[in-house]
């Protein structure tokens, strides 16, 4: 199932990349001066690096806090964490970039900050929700058999919650790639750069290429992520078909 989704997403990535290619974009919009391919490729690498710098801390913070606020000791923090995280997504990244610009200056830093804040919500919410709903009877049995709280987390909760957490990381990653284009406004060299230049110079091919290349990068990352998840699932020798967590693991009779 994941594998098939991954193939569809990768096909979409190829289609978007095709649209971003200078000859195709030029031909589609009747422009003789599309954005050059090698500069587009360099921007894509920079775009990916900015996303990486933002998503790694987001994933660490989000997963760690997601675990913390579902522990008995961290539960009082939960309403606060929920409010902060909701606020972090309510503020548009472009506003964060604009506000961080005076402090962090021109370039990639404001964008990394904006993406880190923006993508925190899906990861933290996803992790907390996954841990809240993982096979409660398995956790109860683990406790009754004498697993310590740390062992229950490592051996039962995390392995069972992992597919949902991975799904939230996937959302965060795709969100970050799509949103990173905004960074071009603050001088970050991203795939948003051709869009900004295109808007300034009324070059529609630049705009189309920037947008299509951003989409291609997002689809490509999503597809690779899905394939990696499918592989991990296979290695873990889990029963092939993914099962909704709410459903009982036992067949009747």
């Amino acid at each position, binding site marked *: 199932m994941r594998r098939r989704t991954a193939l569809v997403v990768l096909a979409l990535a190829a289609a978007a990349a095709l649209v971003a290619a200078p000859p195709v974009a030029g031909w589609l919009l009747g422009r003789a001066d599309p954005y050059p391919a090698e500069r587009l490729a360099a921007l894509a690498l920079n775009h990916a690096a900015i996303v990486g710098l933002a998503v790694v801390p987001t994933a660490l913070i989000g997963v760690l806090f997601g675990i913390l606020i579902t522990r008995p000791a961290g539960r009082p923090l939960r309403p606060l964490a929920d409010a902060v995280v909701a606020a972090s997504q309510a503020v548009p990244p472009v506003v964060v970039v604009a506000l961080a610009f005076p402090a962090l200056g021109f370039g990639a830093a404001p964008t990394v900050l904006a993406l880190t804040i923006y993508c925190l919500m899906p990861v933290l919410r996803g992790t907390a929700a996954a841990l809240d709903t993982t*096979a409660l*009877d*398995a*956790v*109860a*049995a*683990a*406790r*009754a*058999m*004498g*697993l*310590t709280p740390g*062992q229950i987390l490592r*051996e*039962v909760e995390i*392995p*069972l919650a992992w597919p949902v957490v991975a799904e939230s990381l996937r959302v965060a990653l795709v969100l970050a790639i799509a949103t990173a284009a905004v960074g071009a406004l603050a001088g970050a060299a991203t795939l948003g750069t051709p869009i900004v230049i295109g808007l300034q110079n009324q070059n529609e091919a630049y705009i189309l290429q920037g947008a299509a290349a951003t989409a291609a990068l997002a689809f490509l990352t999503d597809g690779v992520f899905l394939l990696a998840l499918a592989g991990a699932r296979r290695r*873990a*020798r*889990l*029963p092939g078909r993914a*099962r909704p967590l709410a459903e009982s*693991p*036992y*067949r*009747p*009779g």
Partner: protein
Amino acid sequence: MIGFDRVSVSFGATEALEDVTLSVAPGALCVLVGPSGSGKSTLLRLVNRLVEPTAGRVSVRGTDVTALEPAQLRRSIGYVIQSVGLFPHRSVAENIATVPRLLGWERRRIDARVTSMLDLVRLGEEYRERYPAELSGGQAQRVGLARALAADPDILLMDEPFGAVDPITRGSLREELRRIHQKTGKTVLLVTHDPIEALELATQIVVLRDGRMVAAGTPMELMAPAGDPFVRDLFGGELLALRRLRFTPVAAIMEPPLAGAAPGIPAATSLWDALIRMIDQRAIRLAVNDEAGGVVGSVSLRALVERHP
């Protein structure tokens, strides 16, 4: 083996258990029975410190449980719950190996133990590598029992273990439990809301109601005609006269052999089964056989009616 001394438990304003004193002897199969909310699960969960008493003392193997480290205590006690709670991401063998692994057993010893546990609950070797999602409810419950017994605990706690399976599977699991209890001599504390299940399984029954112990004793004692009205009703009211017949062998009311008695029944047959045979064969007198099949006596309908305990 397990002792409760004037134990009370309250959750906030609700009193879950009030002043319960009870002792469970080694090798007993003690069944806690009562309606929902009677406190029977709370009483069970006190034993491995899933619940702490508000007042009183709980002791296991002569030691106050508060002096024991909860994780260590729990590893020394088997525990089976209604929802089974098998780990869905682990194979049957890995599930069964949970506590032995926590106790640091060697790989080979664990493997051998898994094999003998599967054998004990009558699941073949081919189940070793299956995952819980591939098991039926009854099979999952058997694996749950095997997992609870894997580290050879001398105490087994069972919280409504047969509640989630169909009646036929429930019957065979009960039979299995009785067999395993006889074979291993474990001390079993079992919670059920089903009074008939309690009568069929228990060597000792404790009846709870609204957090208080209202009766305790052997099944026969609790079925006595002059018992507490709540207890009488719980176990079946006027049907009790018939139910008691299940607990007495024909040997208790046997008379000398008599010519003309219909084909024989073993001396260990219950009065209940003897009565069914009489009705079935339209006979008011049956021969009683010894193990070799020789006639040692007879049992009559008249004796059954007049002399049953």
